[in-house]
C-alpha cells in the first residue's frame, strides 16, 4: 500500500465528516423511533396478554432500535472527530447522544436481570426509566445534530427540511413515553408498587401532554423556517404510529380508528392558520388549540390515568373505549383550560428552544 492510498480514508473522513455526523444523527433518531414504536407495542402487548418473558417481538424491535442508535452515535463520534469546521457547534449534540446511548445500552442487561428476578415488570421500573431517559436524550441529541446541520449548510428551503420530521418525531414519542410512565397506573407488580399516586398522575398528564404536543408541533414548524405542511406530516405520523401500536393490535377497539384519525383535523388546521398568518398571536392560538386536544390525541391509554381518579373502574382491553368515552366530557371540563394554557406556554417556549437549537447567531 502506498502512502497516498493509506491517506485516502482519512481524507474521505475529513471531507465528508459533517455528512457522516448527519448520517449518525439520522440513524440515532431513526433508532429511537424504532425503540418508541417497540415500546408502545410492548405496552399494548402487556395489556392484552401479559408476556412473561424477555424475548418478545416488541422487545426485539426495541433493541434493534437501540443497536441502530448505537451505530448512529458511533458514526456521530467519527464524524465529529474529523470535523474541520463547526466542531464546537456539534459537540453538544454528540455529548447528549453519548450520555443517552450509555443509558440505553445499560438498560438492556439491567432489564434482563430485572425480568429474570422479578418476572413481569411494570411500566415504571428502574430499567425502564433508564431506557426512557436514554431514549429521550438520544432523540434530543439527534434532533440538535440534524437541525444544526441543516442550518449550517443553509438547507432552509429544500426538501432536506423534511429530515426535521425524523428529528422531532422521536423526541415527541420518547417524551410521551416518559410522561406516560409517570402517569399511567401500569407499574404495580407482585414485587413492587410503582404506580404513581393517582392525583399526581392526573396532574402530570393534564399539564405535560398538552405541553409536549404543542412544543413538538411548533418546534418542527420553527426549525423548518415556518414551512407549511410540516405540522400536518409530523402529527399524521404520530397518529399513524400510535394507532398501529395502541389501537390496531386490540381488535375490540379497532372500530375507533376513525375517531382517532379525526385528530388530523386540528393538525391540518394549525398548519393552515400559520400559513395564512405567522404572527405571534396566531402561534399562541395554535399552541392553545394543540394543547386542548391532548385527551383525544393520547387515546386510548390516557383514559387509565383519569379513570383512576374519576371512575375507578376495572378497565379490561374490550372496555377501553366504553370507559374512555364515558369520561371524555368530564375530562375536558376539568382539563381543557389548563391544557390550553400549557399549549400556549409551549408555544412561547418553542421560540426559545428553536433559537437555542439553531444557535440563531449562526
Amino acid at each position, binding site marked *: 500500500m502506498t502512502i497516498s492510498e493509506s491517506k485516502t480514508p482519512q481524507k474521505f473522513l475529513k471531507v465528508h465528516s459533517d455528512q457522516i455526523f448527519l448520517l449518525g444523527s439520522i440513524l440515532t433518531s431513526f433508532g429511537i423511533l424504532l425503540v418508541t414504536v417497540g415500546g408502545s407495542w410492548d405496552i399494548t402487548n402487556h395489556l*392484552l*396478554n*401479559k408476556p*412473561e418473558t424477555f424475548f418478545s417481538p416488541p422487545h426485539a424491535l426495541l433493541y434493534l432500535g437501540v443497536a441502530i442508535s448505537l451505530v448512529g452515535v458511533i458514526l456521530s463520534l467519527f464524524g465529529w472527530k474529523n470535523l474541520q469546521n463547526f466542531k464546537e457547534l456539534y459537540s453538544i449534540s454528540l455529548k447528549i447522544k453519548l450520555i443517552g446511548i450509555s443509558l440505553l445500552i445499560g438498560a438492556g442487561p439491567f432489564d434482563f436481570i430485572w425480568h429474570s428476578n422479578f418476572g413481569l415488570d411494570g411500566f415504571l421500573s428502574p430499567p425502564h426509566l433508564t431506557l426512557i431517559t436514554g431514549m429521550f436524550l438520544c432523540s434530543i441529541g439527534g434532533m440538535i445534530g440534524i437541525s444544526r446541520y441543516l442550518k449550517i449548510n443553509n438547507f432552509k428551503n429544500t426538501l432536506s427540511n423534511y429530515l426535521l420530521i425524523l428529528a422531532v418525531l422521536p423526541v415527541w414519542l420518547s417524551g410521551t413515553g416518559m410522561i406516560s410512565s409517570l402517569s399511567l397506573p401500569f407499574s404495580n407488580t407482585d414485587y413492587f408498587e410503582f404506580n404513581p399516586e393517582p392525583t399526581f398522575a392526573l396532574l402530570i398528564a393534564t399539564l405535560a401532554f398538552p405541553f409536549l404536543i404543542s412544543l413538538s408541533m411548533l418546534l418542527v414548524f420553527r426549525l423548518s423556517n415556518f414551512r407549511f405542511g410540516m405540522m400536518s406530516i409530523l402529527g399524521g405520523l404520530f397518529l399513524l404510529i400510535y394507532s398501529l401500536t395502541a389501537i390496531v393490535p386490540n381488535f*375490540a377497539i379497532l*372500530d*375507533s380508528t*376513525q*375517531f382517532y384519525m*379525526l*385528530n388530523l*383535523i*386540528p393538525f391540518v*388546521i394549525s398548519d393552515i392558520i400559520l400559513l395564512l398568518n405567522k404572527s405571534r398571536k396566531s402561534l399562541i392560538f395554535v399552541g392553545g388549540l394543540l394543547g386542548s*386536544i391532548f385527551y*383525544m390525541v393520547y387515546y386510548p391509554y390516557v383514559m387509565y390515568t383519569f379513570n383512576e381518579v374519576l*371512575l*375507578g*373502574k*376495572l378497565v*379490561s*382491553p*374490550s*372496555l377501553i*373505549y*366504553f370507559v374512555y*368515552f*364515558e369520561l*371524555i*366530557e368530564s375530562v*375536558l371540563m376539568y382539563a381543557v383550560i389548563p391544557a390550553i394554557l400549557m399549549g400556549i406556554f409551549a408555544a412561547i417556549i418553542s421560540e426559545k428552544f428553536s433559537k437555542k437549537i439553531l444557535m440563531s447567531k449562526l
Partner: protein
Amino acid sequence: MIYFTLTVFVLPEQYLSNEQLNPQPYFEVELSESEISLGESFRLNIVSENRGDYGDIHIVSAAFPDLIEIGDVIEIVTYDFTQSPVYLVPGDEISYGYSSGLESTLSKYPSIEALNRPIQSGAKNHFEFVVTPEKSGIFTIYVKSVDIPHTSNLSHYPYSGVLDHQDEYVLVYLVNVNP
C-alpha cells in the same frame, strides 16, 4: 368546531351504544375422594369453560379456608391456562365489584387463581391439583370463576351459594379427613 363536536359529542354516543362483550364462565369439578385418612391425598379436577362471548380475562379460583398457607398441602398437577397461576396468601389485597367502581379487601385465606388472557368463546381449560391435608377434620375448598368484562350476573359462576371473602358466590367441596 366540527372536530370537537364529532370527537366529544357525536362519536362517543355512537361508540357507547355498541354492545359490550358478555363472556360467561362455567366449570365442572370432579373430586377423587370424599373421605380419606390423614396422610393420604385426593385430587380435585376443574374443567372450566367460557360459554359466552370472547372475554379479556377468565379466572378460576380455588380457595382453601381451612389453611393459613398453601405450603406442601396443594400441588398443581394439570394446568393449561395461558398465564401462570397466581398464589394469594392471607392479607393480600384482592379486588371485587368489577362492574361498578372497583373495591378492594384483604384476603382471609390462601387461594390459587388460574388465568387465561384472553379467552375465546367456547374455550375449555383444565386445572387439577392434589391435596394432602396435614390435619384431620373437614377439608374445605371454595371454587368460583369470573370473566372480565364483568357485564352481567352471568359473568360469574356460580350464580348462588356461599359468599366468600370477596363477597362472591362459590361452590363448596368438602373432604372428610379421618385421623
